[in-house]
């Protein structure tokens, strides 16, 4: 296997571990994996959820060095992140792996332009291509297909979907090397932040009940409350409910523009099952649905579908669940 130098970076420690593990596999025994962290005025900005010592420990056996770029400013900015990545790639970096996060796309895009690299977004896996370069696997056209993207020019810059790290670090903390970023290329004045409180963890819920346009009025969503509590579920929804009608906050949106679930059970009520919605449901073990149209796409993409009026079926489901226990 060819040896190369890989650069990995992420806004969270587990994503950084995931990127490093993949890079380690591709770099081979003689290759190098350099992890990039950014530190600013108020401490570490990337990964933001651990101290540098945690991060260096978490990379044991996965990366060779943790490069810490000081001077990144007040918050994680895409242009500063890109400056760090470009420096870390240097002359001989072969591949850059970054997990998706706010600012990550700007970081990846600027890095790719600066390094005359090739780039792919939404990557799920990466392989070496025969004859050089890399091939990234990603979901394409909203989830209609899985595609293979050839990344021909080097370095290859890959933006991965955010996810979980399943492995475990082993051995000693990786050595930390401090570097300093120059002044930002662009002046951006930070006026202020209004915190957004997230109350839902759809991605981690074990049962998700989602509502769609089969519900006629906002008040009708009350119908699902007893079902949600009987199942101990989290409430999700399709795009029209969150974005067009704004009946539920966007954090409850399932699909391409929203969350991807990993639930044991996903129950879709009055949702037609367009690919942009279903792409967020791929990770569910069992998919059930209630829809009054036996030809709706959801019927070909679910395990169990009650063909019927949700206004009648949902209360009966609550009864059936209650009488069972």
């Amino acid at each position, binding site marked *: 296997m060819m040896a190369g130098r890989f650069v990995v970076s992420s806004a969270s420690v587990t994503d950084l571990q995931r990127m490093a593990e993949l890079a380690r596999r591709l770099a081979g025994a003689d290759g190098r994996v350099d992890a990039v962290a950014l530190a600013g005025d108020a401490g570490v900005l990337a990964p933001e959820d651990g101290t540098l010592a945690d991060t260096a420990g978490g990379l044991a056996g996965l990366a060779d060095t943790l490069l810490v770029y000081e001077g990144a400013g007040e918050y994680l900015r895409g*242009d500063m992140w*890109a400056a760090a990545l470009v420096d870390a790639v240097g002359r001989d970096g072969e591949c850059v792996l970054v997990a998706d996060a706010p600012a990550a*796309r*700007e970081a*990846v*895009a*600027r890095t*790719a*332009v*600066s390094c005359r690299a*090739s*780039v792919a*977004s*939404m990557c799920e896996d990466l392989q070496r291509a025969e004859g050089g370069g890399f091939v990234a696997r990603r979901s*394409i*056209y909203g989830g*209609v*297909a*899985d*595609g*293979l*993207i*050839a*990344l*021909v020019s080097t370095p290859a810059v890959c*933006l991965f979907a955010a996810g979980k790290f399943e492995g475990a670090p082993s051995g000693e903390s990786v050595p930390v090397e401090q570097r300093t970023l120059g002044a930002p290329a*662009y*002046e*951006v004045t*930070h*006026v*202020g*932040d209004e*915190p*957004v409180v997230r109350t839902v963890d759809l991605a981690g819920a074990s*049962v998700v009940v989602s509502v769609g346009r089969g519900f006629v009025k906002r008040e009708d969503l009350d119908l699902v409350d007893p079902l949600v509590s009987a199942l101990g579920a989290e409430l999700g929804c399709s795009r029209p409910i969150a974005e*067009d009608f704004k009946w539920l906050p*966007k954090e409850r949106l399932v699909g391409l523009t929203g969350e991807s679930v990993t639930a044991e059970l996903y129950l879709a009520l009055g949702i037609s099952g367009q*690919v*942009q919605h*279903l*792409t967020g449901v791929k990770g569910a*073990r*069992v998919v*059930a649905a209630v829809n009054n149209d036996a030809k709706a796409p959801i*019927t*070909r*993409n*679910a*395990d*169990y*579908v*009650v*063909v*019927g*009026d949700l206004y009648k*079926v949902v209360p*009966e*489901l609550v009864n*059936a669940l209650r009488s069972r226990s």
Partner: protein
Amino acid sequence: MRIIVCAKHVVDSTEIRWDDEHDEVVLRNLPTKISDYDRNALEAAVVLKESEPSVDLDVVMIGGEAALKTLKEAVAMGADRGHLVEGGWDDPFDPLRSARVLAKAIDQLEEPDLVMCGLVSEDGYNGVTGAALAQLLDVPYLAPVVGLKVDEGSLEAVLDVGSALRTVKVAMPCVVAVDSAMNVPRLPTVLQVMKVKGDRVAKMSLDSLSLSADAAELAHAGELVGSESGAVERRRVLIEEAPDEAAARLVEYLRQEGVL
């Protein structure tokens, strides 16, 4: 003030299907449109123009002859003129190519104060083109933008960074990428689209941008080389009974699956 909106001509992504028989994504003969989020960018630009009539608003689009109709739709939303860069198919898997062509096209036009685009294109979903364009133009990039205010050469934007709504201020020129939460785009009427006469849409060839299709600069930086169905195999059991019986049956199945 001058604004350029980069809008993408795409096939309607909700119509794209996987063809099991030929093992391929079917893109032929599908309706085409302005990419979703670019409509939010156009709307935001038109709103700025409505509040400040001196705003001069251009739309730039890459595509073949078929994109002309889409470009007219974009102009009909309220732009002054449109520019079609005859660069062939705007490959969703090569966003760096799109950014390079757009940057060259923008270089040919009167210098903008503000370049706007959608956060992602609905076919590629990369979220790379706008930021790559900012890098090529050497200006700041703000995304995902959900609020905008222009004030004497500077721009105040609200960004949805997940954990917060962040307000930042930059001097123009800059590139902003608009999120769908920013607004509800207007739909131009058929009559408004018809009223966009030929003199409001100009064509630019790649040659005139000193880019030819095979130039090294446009060499593929990312290319789709294979695909397979993205569908997950499911059991597809239909339960067609009276509501109470159907509900009981579903609960029974779910119990057997061990998910209750």
